[in-house]
């Protein structure tokens, strides 16, 4: 790979540098080698996704004759069948409920707990933070067996709440650890000014802290939603009635039920990945920005 952007063949003298750079316009083109590498990487990353999406536009005989071919002719019936099926939409709604409730609760509980850790001084503050930080060591996979038993005792199996509450609990550590630096970065002076103006600590929280920490909250919210949308292990253990299935379970169920109808499986699968992709694409920049505070260079 050669470099063009950072080359500085004629060394600029100090005085020249002081005169400032040319005004910023469009980004320059990279070298062809860079684009070639990028193209290869993208082809590899997108191939399986393309297989799923394009496969949904084929029929089973096409898939059997040439598994790696393009749709010829294009069939839209697989997609229209999925989009008109009650099962897909029921599972879609279940996933939306679980994802939405998880995200709302994690955000609400996470911001308030992070606010306490970041801005109150009391004995046990370190302990509280240590407790949540220790949660990073307990991923849901490790805890799934005992968790299932506890949910069973609480009669939460087979209800969406039984997925939501554990997801909230396991989402809290990440959220709090990303948010605490955001809240600590709010200058004390703002809080003092607010208190001079007669704003209580809680008023300060609602009127100043929430708006100011929005970038961090957005980052954690998106990550939580995508993680919930994709989560498989917990619903697999907790939900056994098909009426409460979320989309990932639905895909698995559909796959085993219509194993011979590969094209339909592919259509079902590709439709269920759309929301997470849309969400992520829309907020990709914010996620990188929001993580910046978390990974100190």
């Amino acid at each position: 790979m050669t470099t063009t952007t950072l080359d500085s063949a004629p060394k600029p003298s100090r005085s020249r540098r002081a005169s400032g750079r040319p005004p910023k316009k469009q980004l320059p083109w990279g070298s062809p080698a860079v684009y070639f590498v990028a193209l290869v990487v993208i082809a590899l990353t997108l191939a399986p996704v393309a297989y799923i999406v394009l496969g949904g536009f084929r029929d089973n005989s096409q898939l059997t004759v040439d598994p790696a071919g393009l749709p010829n002719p294009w069939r839209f019936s697989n997609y229209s069948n999925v989009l008109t099926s009650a099962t897909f939409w029921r599972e879609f709604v279940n996933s939306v409920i679980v994802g939405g409730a998880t995200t709302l609760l994690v955000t609400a509980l996470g911001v308030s707990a992070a606010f306490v850790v970041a801005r109150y001084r009391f004995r046990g503050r370190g302990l509280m933070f240590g407790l949540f930080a220790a949660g990073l060591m307990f991923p849901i996979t490790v805890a799934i067996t005992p968790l299932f038993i506890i949910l069973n005792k609480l009669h939460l199996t087979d209800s969406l709440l039984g997925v939501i509450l554990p997801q909230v609990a396991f989402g809290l550590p990440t959220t709090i650890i990303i948010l605490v630096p955001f809240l600590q970065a709010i200058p004390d002076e703002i809080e003092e000014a607010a208190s001079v103006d007669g704003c209580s600590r809680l008023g300060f929280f609602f009127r100043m802290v929430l708006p100011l920490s929005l970038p961090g909250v957005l980052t954690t919210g998106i990550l939580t939603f995508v993680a919930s949308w994709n989560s498989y292990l917990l619903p697999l253990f907790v939900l056994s009635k098909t009426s409460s299935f979320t989309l990932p379970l639905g895909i698995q169920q559909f796959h085993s039920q219509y194993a011979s109808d590969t094209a339909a499986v592919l259509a079902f699968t590709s439709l269920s990945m759309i929301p997470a992709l849309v969400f992520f694409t829309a907020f990709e920049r914010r996620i990188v920005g929001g993580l910046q505070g978390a990974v100190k260079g």
Partner: protein
Amino acid sequence: MSETPRATSALESSLDSTTVGGGADSVSPSTAVVAGRPPRARASWRERLEITLLSGPAIVVFVAFVILPVFAAVYYGFYRWKGYGPPTDFIGLHNYKVILGDPEFHRAVLHTFEIAGLSLLIQGPIAILLALLLNREMRGRSIIRILVFVPWVVSEVIAGTGLSLMLPVNGAINALLTNMHVFGHVQVQWLGPHLALWTLMAILTWKYLGFAVILLMAGLQNIPEELYEAASIDGASYWQMQRNITLPLLGPTIRIWAFLSIIGALQLFDLPWIVWGEFNLDRDGVSTMATYMAHYGPRTGLYGYGNAVAVVLFVISLIVALFYQRFVLRRDISGSVTDGGKR
């Protein structure tokens, strides 16, 4: 798989100034001291109430569903218990003896550690190069970024379902290779015992590379531009700069990524479970500790045994995590876990 970033060094970092307006800087330090809150330890009842109100719900949910299960697992692990009624058949350490003597579990542990090590060796270098590439100011960068992250956003179930249809002998991968007319009629057993581990590594690299890249890119943003300007004035080439500026300064981010990657590998469940299927994992050599636990847990009615496996898994993860933090992350996280983040 919990692939959300859990950055350990978060606390000392000061955020970019866009987070908060800088307008309050003009307040003089003396007024700040005067108007400041009373010193610690004199928390009024009102303040205590606020603390309870704000952090209470989070702590309750967290303790109930994260901390309690761990203790429950330890308790149930001492019993032979089918899940009906209260556990009565106390068998001491018998479950643990069975687990530690089970060759199938030994294989699962071996695979897990192979996967963890290979993930670092394969994904690390590729991710660093890719992050450098995507960090360059060039046209089309944002669209390339989004496309590279697609596999990470697509769920394990979707990826696994697609791949399980592509990888069989008569699947799309072999058909594609055959269509290229270079290798003749290709009939590779990608999922068979000989190649399974490497196929899994390829799948994992494909799936999780985007996460490594996104984390490294966030780390790259924190490296001051001036260093590169200075180096370029001194006549350093692009690669010299990457080697002598970027890599050392990216060190903490790389170490955190490695930590998250190891923890992720120890929890690996979804992809092997879906692509190979519950009953082929051990035969094909891609069983992991988590798939072993799921196989011999509530799903087969072995509640006590499943809990004992959970304890073993947790202890192994904890040892690895503590070891890593003690010897690798030590300089990065001083102050974050230990003193709860200083103001």
